[in-house]
Structure formats: structure tokens, C-alpha cells
């Protein structure tokens, strides 16, 4: 980015009320996104000669020689004299094209070579750089080639490229052709396009574009995230409780990312249905073998129990207890119950003991069979656990079965069938679980990715706002900067216009560059009789011409332009006489710092220049038979002063006392004009500030001050002028300077001195010119 523009922009930024983040956006963009600075290194260049051969109205080679220094040169030639061939030849040579021929039918450019010339067309220009070195620019076209023939283009193009002038030509085109004068306002965007790079304003446009790009990228991401959210929400199963929670979290206008995060963090088992399904799918069911074993076991236990239960277990236990008690209480052989003596003998004791033991064993066997049977029964019962028993209800709840299911398990066969049914149910549940689980897993993954993206968008939301704020601010700042940067051109153009408009009721208030969409246009606030309406439409052709010149000259005077010359072809056409006077003044003002070359077809402009006593070089172009073109220099201002002095020095032309004042005045003016030329030429060659040189000339009040500028480059040393002139050019010239001063200030010179004054002055000027370069 242009460093000056960058500084201006950042200064504005620091004074703006913009949020820090938005400010930062602009600072970063200004540093990064802008194109690298374009350093203008193309050297300033003046025009020294233009030689044209076999081009349009010029047959044999003709050369236009110009003073490569600030000043106004007017090239006068009647229509058809070949003067425009110089202007257009130069334009063609430098730009490779002619504005006047663009968009014209082919017939216009078919006969572009001179009819009286059979050789190749050759155009040469000598450009002078600061320091006095000359750069030649030449292009040749074979006879009969079209003007766009590029065979000879490489050579001049290389020279232009070498110095960087090719880059500057589109912005600072130093040519203003008559055709362009009229069409300058046809497309108001072309002026914007031409001026924007000149003012470095393209950088602002680039900056705005880079901000817009950032905003669009953010916006696109935001929109995509929103669209993806809609897609995710659409995928959520409304029956699923988790999905409902997710939907509650992100379904609204403002998604609750924290809640979603929490939902995703938690284990998937947090809904009853899924737990149920999981339990169902994981049901523990007995195998066929287990069922068979359990039932066999039960049968065995039942058989044993049946066998054992043939004895009366309780009676056997009671009898055994009775016998044990009888044995314990026996005292002698007599029965204590029935009193029968001697029955409880040793044999009885033995038999009773045996019987009690057998009865006790019988009772124990039954008890054992009983408990075994209980165990076996329990085992069969345990074939289906609680979960399995609850399965039918659960399955119905989950919608896996429609009808109530009764679990029959009266015998082995029934149990087996029931287990089979349950196993089918389990498999169904597993399938359903898998379906739900996989979909959910996928969804969770997508949700996690989306969450990340949404968090990014959320984080950038403030940045997006900052970018939007920055963009808005930049637009305003750019408009202001654009206006500011363009103001000098606008003001200068307005000043020119006021000079030129003379009797016109149309006033130019402001020219502004406006950005419109991707392009822009130049707006001319021109008002007729102070009405607010835009008056471009009511302007006459002559007024439009004047306006074009008004805008062209300030552009040519820009420091950024390496072209120190400007060529204007026939601006006088269609202008009122009063405007021609204005034009002369405007051109003369521009010529203080630029080499202005004006081609004109009639005498009105030279006449106005003479009348207004403006400094200018007049060249006359004449075309003779066979397209031979002659360029003759008309009297220069210096020459005109000398001639005037000579005329008034003749006896009896004026009263003697007036003569004694007027002749030195003319001579002095001649020296001053010559001195001014030297100072300007020198500034041009040394590349010093032309405005300063012009100011110095304007400020030099006396002849001695002007001469001090030539001799020392310092008007302040006017006291040393006499001595220096004597030292450099001899005592007679030192005396001449004194005479010029004396005479002009009312100290009459003697007749003899007065009569020799013009010739002496002429000789002195010649000395100054040869010596002071």
C-alpha cells in the first residue's frame, strides 16, 4: 500500500470511534492484503524533438524542435499544414495507438501513411532526461503496413519499458487530442479509472476488497453452519428422547452450544427405553441342555421323594424317639408303662436300639429327598430369571410385539418353546438396539463436528461484526481521502475553468471521484445560473472543450507524472474569443512548471498570447508541394522586446524624453525574459523544483535580482551582479546593465548610448545564453 496513504488512513483510524477489534482488522488488512508499494522510479522526461517521415500529412522527414524546459510553445499551422501529424505521430510512437482512430471505421486508418511518400514511415522522438542526456525513441512501419503493424513496435516499447514510462502512460497520458477533448465526458468512468491509480486510490479499493473478501468468507461459513444445523435437526428422531433433548438445545434460533456439548459428553444410556432395550437384548436364557438337565434332575428327585415318602416319616421319627426314651428310662427288666416284668431284657434292648436306628434312617432319607426335590424345583424355576419373565411386558412397551405374551413353562417342552420365543425377542431387541445405536453414534459424531464449527462461528461472530464495522468505516474514510487527494486537481481545474469560462453562465463547483460498485466515476458539479441541476447537458461544445482542458492540465502538472511535457491538439476550435484569452492565461500558468506544446490551426491563440504579453515560443508549420513540411520559429518574446526597442529607438518615432525611457524598458524586458528562460531551463535539466524556480523568477523585482539568479542562483546577491558581469563578460556589459537600469528609472541616456542599446542588449543576451547553460 502507498505509504503516504497508509499513514493518512491510520491517522484517521486512530481518531475514529471504531472498536479496537474493528480497528485491528483495518490495520492488519492495510499491512497484509494491500499490494506491494509501487515505487515510482521512472525518471522525469522532457520533449526535445519530434521527427516525422511518411506519416499522414508529412512526406519528407520534418523535425519539430522544442526547448526541453518549462514554457509554452504554440505550433501554428493552417488546417492541412501537417502540424497535427507531429502531435499524432508522437502519440502513436509513445502509446502505440491513436485515441482519435479508436472506434473509427477502417477507412480512417487505412490511408495513414503519406500519399507522397514511398519509403517506410518513421517517427522519432528525442526525450531529454534531467542532466541533459537524450533518449531516442524510434519506430518504423514498412510502406503499406497498417498503422497497428507491430513489427517495429518492439524497439520503442523496450525503451519505454526500460524507464518505466509504459507503466505511467495510461495514468498520465500527456496527450490531449481534439477528438478526446469532446469525448472526455462521454464516459465519466474513464476519468475515474485514469485518475484512481494516479492518486494511489486503487490501494483503498484493494483494501476494501480484501475486507469484503474476509467478510464473505465468514458469512459463508456462518451460513453453511446454519444450513448444516437444519440438516442435523431434520435427522433427529422425534421418538427418541435423546434426539428431543438435542433438538431442544440447538433447534431454536440461537443454539445452546453448551447444552449440546453436555449432552454429547454424557453416556448414551440416559433414557428408559434404551435401558429396557439393552436389557432385553442382553437377556440370559438357558440352553436346551440346561433345560433338559434341570428337568431330569427334577424327575429323579421326585422319584426319590416318592420312594421315601412310602414310610411315615413322622411316625418313624416319633417311634424312634419313643424307643430312645424307653431305652433311657429302663431300670431293670420290668416295663414301666404296663408293669409287665422282665420284658425289657437285654434282647429287647438290642432290638429296640436296632429299630430306633432304622426308623431314624428312614426319616432322614425322606427329609433328604424332600430337600432335593425342592432344590430341583427351584432350579427349573430359575431357568427364566426376572428379566426374562418381565420381557413380554417390556417388549410390548417397546413395540417389539403387539400381543400380550404368556410364558408357559408347565413342562420341559413348554419351557423350551417359551425360551425359544424369548430368544427371538432378544434377537429382535438386539437388532433394534444396534439400529438405534449406530444411527445415534453417527449423529453424535456429526453433532460433535458441527459443534466445533459452530463454536468457531460463534468465536468469529465478533470478528465478523468488527469486519462489517471496519468496512463501513473504510467506505466513509475512503470517500473522504479520495476527495482530499483529488482536491488539488479539482481546485486547480476549477481555477482554470473560472479563467476559461468568461461569459459562460455555467459554473464548475466541484469535481469528485465517486466509487460506484466495483468501478467509479468522476462527478462534475456544474451548475448553470446557480441552479442545483447538473449542467453537463446544457454546456456548449466550446464549454466542454474548455472544461476538458481545465481538467487535463492539473493532471499533467502532478508531481507523480514523469512526463514534464503535455501536448494539446487544437483546443481553440469552437471557442469564443473571450475564452481564447482565458485559455492563453491558463496554458501560460501551466507552462510555468511544464513544457506545454499546443497545436492550433488559426492565429487566435498566438494573438491572445501576444496581446496579453505572455511568454511563449511560436512555431509556424507550412506544408508545401509533395508534403514537404517546414517548421519556422516565430519571433520569441526576447526577440519581440528587442525588435520593439529597435523600433522605438528610431529618431522621431516618439518624443525624445519618452524614447529615453521606453527603449531601456524594452531592452531590460528582453534581458529579464532571457534570464527567466535560462533559470527555467536550468531547473529542468538539474531536476530541481520547478515551482521554486518559477517563484524565484516572479519574486525577482529588479533586473539585478533577475541577473543574480542567473549568475549565482541567488537573487539575494544582486549587489555582486555588476562585478560578476564585468568578470565574466567584460566591462562594456557591466556598463550596459547600469545603463538599462538608469534609463528605465528615468535617468535619460544620451542619444548615442540609446541608439546602440538594442544591439548591445542582443549581444549581451547571446553571451548569457552561451555562458550560463
Amino acid at each position, binding site marked *: 500500500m502507498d505509504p503516504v496513504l497508509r499513514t493518512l488512513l491510520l491517522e484517521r483510524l486512530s481518531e475514529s470511534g471504531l472498536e479496537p477489534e474493528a480497528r485491528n482488522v483495518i490495520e492488519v488488512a492495510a499491512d497484509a492484503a494491500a499490494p506491494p508499494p509501487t515505487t515510482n522510479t521512472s525518471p522525469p522526461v522532457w520533449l526535445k524533438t519530434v521527427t516525422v517521415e511518411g506519416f499522414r500529412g508529412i512526406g519528407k522527414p520534418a523535425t519539430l524542435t522544442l526547448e526541453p524546459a518549462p514554457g509554452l510553445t504554440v505550433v501554428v499551422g493552417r488546417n492541412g499544414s501537417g502540424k497535427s501529424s507531429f502531435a499524432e505521430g508522437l502519440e502513436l510512437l509513445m502509446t502505440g495507438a491513436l485515441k482519435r482512430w479508436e472506434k473509427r471505421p477502417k477507412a480512417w486508418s487505412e490511408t495513414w501513411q503519406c500519399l507522397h511518400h514511398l519509403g517506410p514511415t518513421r517517427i522519432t522522438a528525442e526525450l531529454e532526461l534531467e542532466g541533459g542526456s537524450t533518449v531516442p525513441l524510434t519506430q518504423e512501419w514498412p510502406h503499406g503496413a497498417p498503422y497497428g503493424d507491430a513489427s517495429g513496435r518492439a524497439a520503442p516499447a523496450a525503451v519505454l519499458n526500460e524507464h518505466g514510462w509504459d507503466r505511467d502512460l495510461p495514468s498520465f497520458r500527456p496527450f490531449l487530442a481534439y477528438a478526446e477533448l469532446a469525448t472526455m465526458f462521454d464516459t465519466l468512468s474513464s476519468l475515474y479509472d485514469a485518475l484512481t491509480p494516479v492518486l494511489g486510490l486503487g490501494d483503498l479499493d484493494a483494501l476494501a476488497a480484501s475486507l469484503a473478501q474476509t467478510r464473505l468468507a465468514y458469512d459463508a461459513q456462518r451460513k453453511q453452519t446454519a444450513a448444516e444445523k437444519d440438516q442435523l435437526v431434520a435427522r433427529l428422531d422425534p421418538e427418541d428422547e435423546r434426539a428431543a433433548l438435542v433438538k431442544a438445545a440447538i433447534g431454536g434460533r440461537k443454539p445452546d452450544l453448551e447444552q449440546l456439548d453436555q449432552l454429547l459428553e454424557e453416556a448414551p444410556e440416559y433414557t428408559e427405553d434404551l435401558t429396557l432395550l439393552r436389557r432385553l437384548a442382553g437377556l440370559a436364557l438357558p440352553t436346551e441342555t440346561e433345560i433338559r438337565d434341570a428337568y431330569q434332575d427334577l424327575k429323579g428327585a421326585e422319584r426319590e421323594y416318592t420312594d421315601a415318602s412310602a414310610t411315615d416319616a413322622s411316625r418313624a421319627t416319633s417311634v424312634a424317639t419313643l424307643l430312645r426314651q424307653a431305652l433311657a428310662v429302663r431300670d431293670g427288666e420290668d416295663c414301666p408303662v404296663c408293669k409287665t416284668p422282665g420284658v425289657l431284657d437285654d434282647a429287647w434292648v438290642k432290638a429296640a436300639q436296632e429299630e430306633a436306628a432304622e426308623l431314624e434312617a428312614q426319616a432322614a432319607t425322606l427329609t433328604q429327598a424332600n430337600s432335593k426335590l425342592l432344590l430341583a424345583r427351584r432350579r427349573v424355576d430359575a431357568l427364566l430369571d426376572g428379566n426374562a419373565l418381565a420381557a413380554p411386558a417390556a417388549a410390548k412397551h417397546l413395540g417389539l410385539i403387539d400381543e400380550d405374551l404368556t410364558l408357559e413353562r408347565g413342562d420341559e417342552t413348554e419351557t423350551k418353546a417359551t425360551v425359544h420365543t424369548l430368544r427371538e425377542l432378544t434377537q429382535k431387541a438386539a437388532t433394534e438396539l444396534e439400529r438405534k445405536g449406530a444411527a445415534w453414534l453417527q449423529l453424535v459424531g456429526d453433532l460433535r463436528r458441527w459443534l466445533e464449527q459452530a463454536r468457531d462461528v460463534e468465536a468469529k461472530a465478533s470478528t465478523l461484526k468488527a469486519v462489517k464495522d471496519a468496512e463501513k468505516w473504510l467506505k466513509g474514510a475512503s470517500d473522504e481521502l479520495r476527495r482530499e487527494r483529488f482536491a488539488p486537481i479539482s481546485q486547480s481545474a476549477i481555477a482554470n475553468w473560472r479563467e476559461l469560462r468568461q461569459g459562460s453562465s455555467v459554473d464548475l463547483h466541484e469535481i469528485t471521484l465517486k466509487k460506484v460498485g466495483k468501478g467509479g466515476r468522476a462527478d462534475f458539479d456544474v451548475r448553470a445560473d446557480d441552479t442545483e441541476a447538473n449542467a453537463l447537458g446544457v454546456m456548449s461544445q466550446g464549454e466542454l472543450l474548455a472544461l476538458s482542458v481545465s481538467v487535463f492540465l492539473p493532471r499533467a502538472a502532478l508531481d507523480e507524472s514523469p512526463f514534464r511535457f503535455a501536448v494539446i491538439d487544437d483546443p481553440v476550435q469552437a471557442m469564443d474569443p473571450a475564452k481564447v484569452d482565458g485559455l492563453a492565461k491558463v496554458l501560460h500558468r501551466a507552462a510555468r512548471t511544464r513544457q506545454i506544446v499546443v497545436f492550433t490551426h488559426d492565429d487566435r491563440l498566438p494573438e491572445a498570447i501576444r496581446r496579453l504579453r505572455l511568454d511563449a515560443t511560436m512555431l509556424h508549420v507550412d506544408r508545401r508541394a509533395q508534403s514537404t513540411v517546414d517548421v519556422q520559429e516565430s519571433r520569441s518574446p526576447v526577440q519581440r522586446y528587442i525588435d520593439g526597442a529597435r523600433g522605438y529607438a528610431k529618431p522621431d518615432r516618439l518624443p525624445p524624453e*519618452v524614447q529615453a525611457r*521606453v527603449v531601456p524598458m524594452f531592452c531590460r524586458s528582453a534581458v529579464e525574459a532571457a534570464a527567466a528562460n535560462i533559470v527555467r531551463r536550468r531547473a529542468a535539466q538539474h531536476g530541481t523544483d520547478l515551482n521554486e524556480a518559477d517563484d524565484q523568477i516572479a519574486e525577482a523585482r529588479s533586473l539585478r535580482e533577475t541577473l543574480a539568479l542567473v549568475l549565482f542562483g541567488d537573487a539575494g546577491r544582486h549587489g555582486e551582479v555588476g562585478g560578476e558581469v564585468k568578470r565574466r563578460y567584460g566591462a562594456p556589459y557591466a556598463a550596459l546593465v547600469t545603463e538599462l537600469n538608469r534609463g528605465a528609472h528615468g535617468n535619460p541616456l544620451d542619444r548615442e548610448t540609446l541608439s546602440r542599446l538594442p544591439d548591445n542588449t542582443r549581444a549581451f543576451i547571446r553571451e548569457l545564453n552561451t555562458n550560463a547553460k
Partner: protein
Amino acid sequence: MLALEEGRYVSERLTVSKVLDEAQRQLDEFDPTTSGAWPHAAAALIRQSLERTLDVFWNDKAPGMLETSARDRWVCLPAYLGDKPEAREADFAWTALSNACHHRAYEVGLTQDELRGHLATARDFLKTVARALA
């Protein structure tokens, strides 16, 4: 016989500034009897004023100049009056008015605005000369 201000040279029927006032009237007032002729009349009056002012100046400084051509009288003016912009403008206005006062087959006359400009120039020139002679 020549007058700059009323009272100084009473023999003069109209003073220069009165002539200029008359020119002003021609520009300001719409008079149906002068329709079409007023620009020419105004131009002639302004030109006359410029010439009279110039002659008053030379009459005072170098009466011999009154024998020379009008062109010479303008050209030599800076040698006595100094190179003043008022003098340059007056010379310029005089040339333009002289052209307008002569019949030119194709040239269009001066516009009202141009005439007003020349009128102002003539008044400034009168002031400058009066000051130089004071």
C-alpha cells in the same frame, strides 16, 4: 479641455466617470429604443473612457505622446506608470473594445458579462492613473 473629475477641468462637458456611468446605465437599464444597439454603445463609451484616461496621463507626463499612435501610447505606458496589472488589463480591454467597435462581418460582438468586465477595468485604470497624477 480634458477632465478626470468634475471640477478639475470644468470645460469638459462630461467627465470620464460620468461617461462610465452612462455605459453602466446602458448595461443595466432596459430601454426598448436602444434594443440591439446598446452593446455597441456601451463598448464605444468604455473605450472612449480608457482613451481619455490614457491621454490625461500622457498630457501630464509627456504631452508629445499625444501625437503618436494609440498603440504606442499604450505600449510606452509602463515606462512611466510602471508595469502595473491595471495598465495591462486596460491595454487588453482597449484592444478588445477596439475590435468590437469596428464592423467585422463574422465576429460576434461582446457579451454583457465581457462588457461589465471591461467597464470594471476602465474604472480601476481611472483610479490608478488619478493616483499616479495626484
